[in-house]
C-alpha cells in the first residue's frame, strides 16, 4: 500500500511537472478575400508553437534543437529538423502563377514548382553534404522529388532570403549558413497534400482541415502548399521565444456565377464540404472574411452574421475583417458561410499594386535569347529592390551588353554574381535596382544556350526547359 501510494505520488508529480514544462499551442485560421478580378483568395494557416527550456536554449545559442515529448508538433518533421542542424526552414509547393498585377500581394508568396530555403545552425559539418541529406529526407516527407536539388541549382544569395525568424546581425548577414534552391518543373498533387495534412494535429478529421478536399483544391487557378519553421518571439515584448511551425495553404479559385450572374460564393461551394467538427486540440479556430470596401454590407451580405469586425490600418492600407469564431459557432450542425452579392460583378480596371514586375524571354531559335524583366513602380516614392535570378548552367549569361558603362540611365548595382561552371554550378545573379516613382525600368540579361549531352536532357525534351522564378525583395512604404 505504501509503495503504491509512493508510485502514485511520483506519477502525479511527474504529470504536474511535465504539464508545466510543456507548452505547445495549435491555432487554425482561414482568410477569405474576394479579389477585384472576380476570383476568391482563400488562405489557410495552421500554426503550431512549442516552447521548452531546451528549445529556448537552442534558439538563443544557435544550437541544434533537441525535441522530446512530442505532442502537437509533428514528430516526423521534428526529427528531420533535429538531425540536419536546421534553424529555419521554408518549403513551398505551388501549382499556378500568382498574378501580382491583378490580385495584389499574397500573404505567403511562392513561385510555381517547389522552393526550399533553409538557414542552418553554425556547425563544423560540411553544409553542402547536410543540405543534400536534408533535401532527400524532405523529399521523402512530402512525397515530392526534391532530391533533384543538387549543387547545380543551389545558391546562397547575399541580400535576398534573410531569416524570417529570430536572428542576430552576425548570423543574418552570413549567407554561408543558408541555402536556397527551386525546382520549377515540380508538380503538386494530392500525393503532396496527404503527407502535409498528416503533419497537422487534428489531421483531416476535424477543424478547418476538414475543408481540404483534393478536387476543389486542384482545380483552382493557384494552389500553394507551404511549410514554414522559424524561431520567433512569443509576444511583442519578446520576453520569451518559441519555435513556430506554420503550415499554409493558399488558393485562388475562379468565380462561380449564380444563375443571375452574381458572384455569390459559400464555403460549401468553394470547398465542396461544410465544417462539422471542431478540432479539440486547437486553442483558436477562426475564419476571416475580408470586407474592405464592403462598408455596411453594401456590395455583399454575409450569412451568418459575423461575430465581430476587426479594423486595422488607415488610408490605403485599411483592412476590415469579419471574424467568425468557429469553435463557438459549431453546434453539431454544419457551419457554412454564404456571401450574397447585390449586383453583378463589374470586370473593370484593377488598380495595380505599388510594385509589379513582368519577366519574359525574348529571342528565337535554340541559339540564345535574353531574359527581360520590367519593373513598374506605380507609387509616388522611388523604390530600391533586390532582384535575385538563379539560372541553370546551360544558359550562358553575357552581362556586359546590359551592364556596360554607358548604360547608366538607371544604375543597377550587382551585389552578388556567381558565374556558372559547366555541369557543376548554376548562375546566381543578384542586383539592387533603383526604380524611380511612377516609372518602368527594364533589365535584360542576354544568354546563349549550351548544347547538352544526350544524358542531360529532362524527360520529354521537346517540352522545353523550366527556369526558376526570380525573386524580388523590397520594403514597401505601405503594407498594401
Amino acid at each position, binding site marked *: 500500500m505504501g509503495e503504491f501510494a509512493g508510485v502514485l505520488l511520483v506519477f502525479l508529480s511527474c504529470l504536474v511537472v511535465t504539464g508545466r514544462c510543456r507548452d505547445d499551442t495549435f491555432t487554425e485560421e482561414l482568410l477569405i478575400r474576394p479579389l477585384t478580378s472576380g476570383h476568391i483568395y482563400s488562405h489557410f494557416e495552421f500554426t503550431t508553437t512549442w516552447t521548452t527550456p531546451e528549445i529556448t536554449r537552442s534558439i538563443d545559442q544557435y544550437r541544434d534543437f533537441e525535441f522530446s515529448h512530442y505532442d502537437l508538433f509533428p514528430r516526423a518533421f521534428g526529427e528531420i529538423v533535429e538531425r540536419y542542424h536546421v534553424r529555419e526552414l521554408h518549403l513551398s509547393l505551388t501549382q499556378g502563377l500568382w498574378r501580382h498585377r491583378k490580385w495584389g500581394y499574397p500573404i505567403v508568396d511562392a513561385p510555381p514548382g517547389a522552393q526550399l530555403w533553409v538557414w542552418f545552425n553554425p556547425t563544423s559539418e560540411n553544409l553542402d553534404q547536410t543540405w543534400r541529406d536534408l533535401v532527400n529526407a524532405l523529399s521523402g516527407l512530402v512525397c515530392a522529388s526534391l532530391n533533384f536539388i543538387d549543387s547545380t541549382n543551389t545558391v546562397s544569395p547575399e541580400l535576398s532570403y534573410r531569416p524570417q525568424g529570430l536572428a542576430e546581425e552576425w548570423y543574418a548577414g552570413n549567407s554561408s549558413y543558408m541555402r536556397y534552391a527551386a525546382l520549377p518543373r515540380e508538380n503538386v498533387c494530392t500525393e503532396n497534400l496527404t503527407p502535409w495534412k498528416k503533419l497537422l494535429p487534428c489531421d483531416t478529421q476535424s477543424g478547418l482541415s476538414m475543408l481540404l478536399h483534393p478536387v476543389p483544391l486542384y482545380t483552382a487557378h493557384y494552389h500553394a502548399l507551404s511549410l514554414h519553421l522559424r524561431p520567433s518571439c512569443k509576444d511583442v515584448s519578446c520576453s520569451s521565444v518559441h519555435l513556430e511551425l506554420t503550415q499554409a495553404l493558399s488558393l485562388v479559385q475562379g468565380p462561380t456565377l449564380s444563375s443571375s450572374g452574381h458572384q455569390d460564393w459559400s464555403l460549401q461551394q468553394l470547398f465542396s464540404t461544410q465544417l462539422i467538427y471542431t478540432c479539440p486540440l486547437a486553442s483558436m479556430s477562426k475564419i476571416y472574411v475580408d470586407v474592405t470596401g464592403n462598408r455596411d454590407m453594401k456590395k455583399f451580405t454575409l450569412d451568418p452574421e459575423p461575430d465581430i469586425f476587426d479594423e486595422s490600418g488607415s488610408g490605403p492600407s485599411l483592412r476590415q475583417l469579419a471574424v467568425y469564431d468557429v469553435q463557438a459557432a459549431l453546434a453539431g450542425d454544419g457551419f457554412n458561410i454564404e456571401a450574397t452579392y447585390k449586383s453583378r460583378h463589374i470586370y473593370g480596371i484593377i488598380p495595380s499594386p505599388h510594385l509589379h514586375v513582368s519577366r519574359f524571354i525574348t529571342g528565337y531559335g535554340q*541559339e540564345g535569347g535574353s531574359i527581360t524583366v520590367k519593373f513598374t513602380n506605380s507609387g509616388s516614392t522611388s523604390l530600391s529592390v533586390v532582384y535575385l535570378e538563379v539560372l541553370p548552367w546551360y544558359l*550562358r549569361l553575357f*552581362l556586359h551588353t546590359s551592364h*556596360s558603362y554607358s548604360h547608366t540611365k538607371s544604375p543597377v548595382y550587382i551585389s552578388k554574381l556567381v*558565374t556558372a*561552371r559547366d555541369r557543376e554550378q548554376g548562375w546566381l545573379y543578384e542586383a539592387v535596382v533603383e526604380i524611380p516613382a511612377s516609372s518602368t525600368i527594364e533589365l535584360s540579361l542576354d544568354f546563349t544556350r*549550351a*548544347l547538352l*549531352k544526350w544524358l542531360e536532357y529532362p524527360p520529354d525534351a521537346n517540352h522545353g526547359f523550366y527556369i526558376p522564378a526570380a525573386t524580388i525583395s523590397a520594403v514597401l512604404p505601405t503594407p498594401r
Partner: protein
Amino acid sequence: MGGVWIMYLLGAGVRLWLMSTSSAVYIAKRVELSTPLNSWKRVQEGVFLHSHGIPVYSGGVFHETPLCLFFGGFLVRSWQAYLSLLFVACDLLTAALLASVAAAYSKQLLLIQKKEVGKYALDASPLLLTSSSLWSGVAYVAAAYLFCPYTVASCVAQTTTVFANLVLAATFTSMVKGYPALFGGLVALCTYQSFYPICLIVPGILHFTKGNNPAIFVTKLLMSFTVSLGLLMVMSAEIAGGWDFLEATYGFILAAPDLTPNIGLFWYFFTEMFEHFRLFFLATFQINAFVYVLPLSIRLRNDPVLLAAALLAFTAVFRSYPSLGDVGLYMALLPMWKHLYPFMRQTFIVGCMFVATSVLGPIMYNLWIFNGSANANFYFAVTLAFNTAQIFLVTDLLFAHVKREYHLFHGSKMEVNGIPARLTLQ
C-alpha cells in the same frame, strides 16, 4: 608595285565595309567563325567580370589567356572606337608577313635548285622553277590571305584568331629568314595562345639543322622557347592572381567540355558518348591531333616549310575548337607551291567540296537551331565533308611534292627496271 598597294587597300576596304554593315553582328555570331576560344564577345565578358572583381577563370565563360585578358581590357576600355581598324591592320600585317615568307622561301628554293641541278634527270627541264613564276606566287599568297572568304569573315567577326594568325605568320617569317631565338620566342607565344602550334618546333629544328651552325641555332631555339614560355606563364599567373587559369585555358582546350557546335569533330562525338569512355576517347582525339608530326617530319625532313604548312593544316582539322580563320591561314600559304599544282589530281573535287560545304554548313545550322526541322547530324555531316576536303587537299599537295621530286631525279618516264610503275604515297 602600285598593284600591290591597291590589293592591300582593297583587302582593307572589303573588311571595313563588311564591318560597317548590319551583317557584321550576324557574322560574329556564326559558330564556324567564333568558337568558345576565340569569340570577342567572351573577351568582352571576361573584361567586364574582371573589372567587377568577379573571378574570371572560376566560371565557364572566359577561356582566353591572362595576357589576352590584360590587352583585351585595355582595348575595350580605351580603344573601343578603333577596334575594327586594329583587326584590319593585323590582317594586313599578316598578309604582308606571309608575302615575305613566300619571297624568302622562293629564294631558298631557287638556291637549292641551283645547287642540285646537276643531279636532276635530263628531261626534267620543264619542271625547273623559274624566278618569275615564284614571284607571282608571292603576290598570290598575299592576295589569298587578303581575299579568301574565310579570313575576311574571321576578321569581320572580330575573333582573336586574327591575332593568333599574326603571331603564326611572324613565326613562319622568323623561321624562313633564319632567326632561331626569335622563332623560339614566337612559337612559345603561339603555344601559349592556343597550345597546338607547339608542333611547329619540329619543323623549326629541322630547318635550323640545315644551316651553318646547327648546334648553336638549335640550342638558341630551344632555350628561347623555354625561357619565353616560362616568362609568359609567370606573367599570366601575376595577372590572373594564381594558377587557376591553367585549368580554364589549357584544361579547356584539352578536355573540351564545351560542346558548342563548330567545324571540328569533337563536339558531335562527345555529345553522344557514354561517360564511362569519355576519357579514353578524349585521349584518342588529342593524340590524333599530334600523331602526324613524327611520320611527316621523317618524310619531309628536307622541306621544313612544307612540313610546317602541312602540320598547320592537320592542326586546323583535328584541334578541339577549330575555326575558319585557322583554315584561311594555311590556305593562304598554298600559292607558295604553285609549281606543284600540275601534279595535283584532285583540285576539282576538292574545290567543289569546299564550295558546297561552305554554303551548306550555315544552311544546315540554321535549319537545326532556328527552324527546328533538321538536327545535329545534318550539320555534322556537312562539317565532316568539309574536313575531308581539307584532308584531301593536304594529302594531294604532299603527294604532288613527292611526285615532283621523283620526276626531277628520275625523269618523266615512270619505270622501274623497264617495267611500268605507279607512284604511291606512303
